């Protein structure tokens, strides 16, 4: 945070401040406008709702990840946890919607609790602790599923969670909005949230100010685990199966989304809204690439797609970081 200390905002930048650091939002709006103009069916109800139905999983995970990152930590286990929770939810799905939901979410929270305990009690760095859970949760997923996808109960209500609608909105989206609102309130209006920010900013200071740093951290990892668990529940419900091998690389998607949204990995700052923008932006590039292929004009070669995704990420973070840098000078 070398820059922060010397940052003194002038009245000029105070006016522009709301606009600064919004590189991701601007990129998102541009991309949507471009795609809506260029592709037929892009803004169709079907495309929009199925886009969010799928990306709600990443949005959920990014909500938890934002909390973790705000404390200066990181959670690499979310992808494995989602896979594990999807298996557990699938196994519990014959007992009804609620059973599946709770089983999956709580299993996730439990892994989060273990992460939190390892980090606070054993003093293992978050990166390593959650790397452990990244491996361990995958092991549990494979063990519980006997290494094969687990069908959810097709006749019960459990599949509604992922495939149904509520008030015209896909249920995963409703769930995400609820968690997002909860997260926003937590972050802004509760001690838990404010302490989380403080810890990421200066952990020693937070300790000396008399906070219970460890329990806040514990809470943050439990929350992240819970949300990853929820993502797993959606995964099982939406695709009809618990999937022990799913979720590979989701942690990077979530981290990238959070950072693209403008949150610093060094902690102390973070905005859930921006994280959502980041995740949606990163998800949208896949959707847009698929539509672009459908134009049949410059059918993008298979391997160039990865290059394009990387370059796209590059452009967005460069935009974002130069704005942040300007903000800081």
């Amino acid at each position, binding site marked *: 945070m070398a820059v922060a200390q010397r940052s003194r905002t002038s009245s000029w930048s105070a006016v522009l401040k709301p606009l600064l650091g919004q590189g991701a939002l601007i990129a998102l709006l541009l991309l949507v406008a471009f795609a809506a103009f260029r592709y037929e*069916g892009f803004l169709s109800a*079907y495309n929009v709702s199925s886009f969010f139905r799928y990306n709600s999983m990443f949005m959920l995970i990014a909500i938890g990840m934002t909390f973790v990152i705000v404390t200066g930590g990181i959670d690499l286990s979310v992808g494995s946890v989602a896979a594990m929770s999807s298996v557990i939810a699938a196994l519990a799905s014959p007992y009804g919607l609620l059973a599946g939901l709770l089983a999956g979410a709580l299993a996730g929270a439990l892994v989060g609790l273990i992460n939190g305990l390892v980090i606070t009690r054993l003093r293992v760095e978050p990166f390593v602790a959650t790397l452990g859970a990244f491996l361990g949760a995958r092991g549990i997923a494979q063990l519980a599923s006997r290494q*094969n996808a687990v069908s959810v109960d*097709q006749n019960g209500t459990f599949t509604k969670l992922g495939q149904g609608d509520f008030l015209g909105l896909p249920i995963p989206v409703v769930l995400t909005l609820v968690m997002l609102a909860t997260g926003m309130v937590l972050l802004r209006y509760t001690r838990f949230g404010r302490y989380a920010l403080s810890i990421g900013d200066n952990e020693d200071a937070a300790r000396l100010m008399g906070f219970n740093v460890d329990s806040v951290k514990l809470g943050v990892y439990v929350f992240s685990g819970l949300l990853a668990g929820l993502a797993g529940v959606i995964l099982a419900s939406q*695709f*009809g199966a618990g999937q022990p*091998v799913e979720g590979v690389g989701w942690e990077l998607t979530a981290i990238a989304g959070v950072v693209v949204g403008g949150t610093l990995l060094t902690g102390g700052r973070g905005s859930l809204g921006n994280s959502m923008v980041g995740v949606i932006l990163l998800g949208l590039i896949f959707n847009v690439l698929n539509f672009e292929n459908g134009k049949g004009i410059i059918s993008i070669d298979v391997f160039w797609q990865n290059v394009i995704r990387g370059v796209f990420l590059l452009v967005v973070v460069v935009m974002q970081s130069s704005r942040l840098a300007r903000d800081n000078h």
Partner: protein
Amino acid sequence: QGGALPKLAVKPKYRVCFNQSEMDNPWRLAQTKSMQDEAKRLGWTLIFTNANGSAAKQAADVRSCIAQRVDAIFLTPREEKPLTPVVLEAKRAGIPLFVIDRKVDEKVAKPGQDFVTFIGSDFYQEGQRAAEWLVKETGGKAKIIELQGSTGSSPAIDRQKGFADYIKKYPGIQIVASQTGNFTRDEGRKVMEALIQAHPEATAVYAHNDEMALGAITALETAGRKPGKDITIVSIDGQKSALDAIIAGKLGATVECNPRFGVKAFQTLKDYAAGKKVAARLVNEDRFFDKTNAKQMLASAF
């Protein structure tokens, strides 16, 4: 799910989707190439998507094809169960869908009813054919190291099961170690290096695909063994480099699992559009390669 299969009009050219599951091995590359080549030959528009190994992403890809209202969808599902819901979604959206290579959950989405047809090989049978050859070749006496495919993938599951079921009847045949090599040459090699160390008594190797078998050969040679002489190797896929290894006397045999779906898949679509009767399952007739035919077949392998 009720309702008939969506109809498909006869057109000179179609706009179709091909939803690939991953692009990380020669088999998948050959499969994709065959689809692209055929589309190019016919002048159709092929929307290619790559799920990078994620079933959920693949489902989202299928949906983006539905959103684009393509004429038809070719889905080569990463996994059975997670892709089943979108197969039904395509039907609801009135888009005919063809499943190729791996299956979807046919208890929920039935071929010929919910989607047009399944075109592919029978992985279980592949495992059985490999076992059959190995039993014959070793005279019913072998200590086997098994290199499994990616944990949880349907070819790995079925090939293991088919093989295991077949050798049950032969008490002289036993599997002394079985670990995943993730369908890749590098991991196949590393795993074999360790396993042959711990199980020098092994006399045979069963690899779920050729890549791992080729890795195993390297490992065995480094360990001072003579693949093809003091250790018998059988695998699945039938790719060119595997046939080369058969010719060199290192690999014993390989069961073909042909990735070239292009011609067959597109022809089936045309047949379907023309109103011809399309069977609910079109199982590939796969060949079997060993030293008796490897040389002749080399040119036609992928």
